[in-house]
């Protein structure tokens, strides 16, 4: 363990957000078992007051968790490579944590997804004075709790493993994973070309679905947003794979350097931030578009607000996909126009 201020800030932020979420979860649990909106009894009135406090605590927790996650990513990509011997980017730092920090990031993004879902429902909930989604949303809040614990514990264990005296291989590991050049040109036995074609086909599909969900009538709305959510779930991993395996080469200008973390370095103009940021937005907004449309169908009182949120999610997703594909394709097209060949 190294006592770097940034790591201490991450640990403190994580603990603070966990405590706040735990406090909110205690109230959420009471709401799940005792909530009776028709009653004006003392217990229900007290629960309604507690629900407002829990909302504030959970929102604050989300903000702190977001901040500590951002600090962790900055640490992995740009601060710790200076400290861990042999590390040149996040790949080396993750090696130093025995891969724990990579797992922690995955769990953190999942927690963040549930929290974003909770926040979306909460905004819909508070658009009505009687807050009709309170009980439902309390379940969403509780759902995040075990993953929250896992994320905080895994992050902390990963931080404990970092040793400033133990050298790591970093990018050597990226190259060492291939036995031959053919192996470097395929993923799971499927050639890179096929992945690229799949990516662009799905991109066309996701754009079509996003436009359909924005223009469709009320009756087809769930179908359109449902298709959008499903394609999003398939599109995001394929987009990430093709980025790392194919399109990253146009940023690195080096063949077969399949490292996602080097994209976050200053020499590559921190391009990983907007690229992976766009992927996160798409991952969140696709399912939210469907869930908001479903809420509009199930709760007529929330219809205008939920429909607006569903459309907003569709619009955000559309813009993020256009921005992402633009950022990915333009360097490749530029390279092709200048040198007359594609890399690889």
């Amino acid at each position, binding site marked *: 363990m190294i006592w770097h201020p940034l790591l201490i800030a991450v640990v403190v932020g994580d603990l603070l957000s966990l405590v706040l979420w735990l406090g909110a979860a205690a109230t959420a649990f009471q709401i799940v078992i005792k909530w009776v909106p028709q009653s*004006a009894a*003392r217990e229900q009135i007290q629960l309604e007051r507690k629900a407002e406090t829990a909302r504030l605590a959970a929102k604050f927790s989300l903000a702190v968790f977001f901040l500590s996650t951002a600090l962790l990513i900055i640490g992995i990509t740009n601060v710790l490579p200076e400290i861990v011997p042999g590390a040149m980017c996040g790949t080396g730092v993750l090696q130093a944590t025995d891969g724990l920090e990579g797992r922690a990031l995955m769990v953190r993004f999942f927690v963040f997804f549930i929290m974003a879902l909770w926040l979306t429902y909460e905004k819909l909930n508070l658009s009505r004075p*009687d807050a009709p989604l309170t009980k439902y949303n309390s379940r969403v809040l509780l759902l995040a709790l075990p993953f929250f614990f896992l994320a905080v514990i895994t992050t902390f264990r990963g931080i404990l493993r970092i040793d400033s005296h133990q050298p790591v291989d970093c990018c050597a590991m990226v190259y060492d994973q291939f036995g031959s050049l053919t192996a470097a040109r395929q993923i799971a036995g499927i050639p890179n070309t096929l992945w690229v074609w799949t990516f662009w086909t799905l991109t066309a599909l996701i754009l079509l679905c996003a436009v359909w969900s924005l223009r469709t009538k009320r009756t087809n709305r769930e179908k359109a947003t449902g298709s959008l959510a499903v394609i999003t779930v398939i599109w995001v991993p394929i987009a990430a794979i093709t980025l790392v395996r194919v399109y990253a080469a146009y940023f690195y200008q080096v063949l077969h350097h399949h490292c996602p973390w080097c994209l976050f370095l200053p020499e590559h103009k921190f391009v990983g931030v907007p690229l992976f940021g766009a992927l996160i937005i798409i991952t969140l907004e696709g399912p939210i578009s469907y869930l908001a449309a479903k809420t509009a169908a199930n709760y007529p009182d929330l219809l205008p607000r939920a429909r607006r949120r569903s459309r907003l999610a569709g619009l955000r997703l559309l813009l993020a996909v256009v921005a992402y594909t633009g950022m990915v394709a333009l360097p490749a097209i530029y390279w092709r126009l200048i040198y007359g060949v594609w890399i690889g």
Partner: protein
Amino acid sequence: MSLSLVCQEVSLSRRRADASERAILKDVNLTLTAGQGAMISGKTGAGKSTLLHLLAGLLRPSQGQIIANGQPVSRWNTVHRDLWRRQVGIVFQKPHLINGFTVLENVILPVIPRGASITQLRKLAWEALDTLGISHLAKQNVLSLSGGEQQRVSIARAIVSRPNILIADEPTAHQDDEGAALIIEKFVGWKLPQTILIVAAHDPRWALHGAFADKHFLLENGRLEEMQ
């Protein structure tokens, strides 16, 4: 739905330092409809101000609910309750004016969130001051006013938004006979078919104006009783 204000089995208790609870209001029931004026009387410390604060949405009951126009406003979440409170004007027992601001600025404050132009806001404020006969004080700092004048400013501040529900806590407490008569006369004048007026007072001067109160309530030991 026409204007109505209903207290339904409302109780309020406070926790003491030793964790025991002290009941301030117990099972209060009250129904007022548009065009009605209500007088609430009771001894000092009986809970009149607390009841008014509950009716104005400034406090939440421990039990029961306050229903305005058929909606349980006391149980609404803060954002919506705050929006509803814009329909309510309240005159506090103490004026609660902002020191350092002029009389006009104090009176304008409640209508600023409505988003009207400053000219319109000033016009509304001047009208409210004129109604109370204190437009000559408009440019003065509130610190330079007497207690009675401050109270009139606080009444002007309560009526500037032309609320549907006007709640006043001892509005004549610091007034001489002339001032009290003017205020009582104004309250009688504000009793319109679309408004509800609620006054808490033990000032006997109100009793001289039988025209004001359609309902008279007595608050004793936390319980509200309607007097015939």
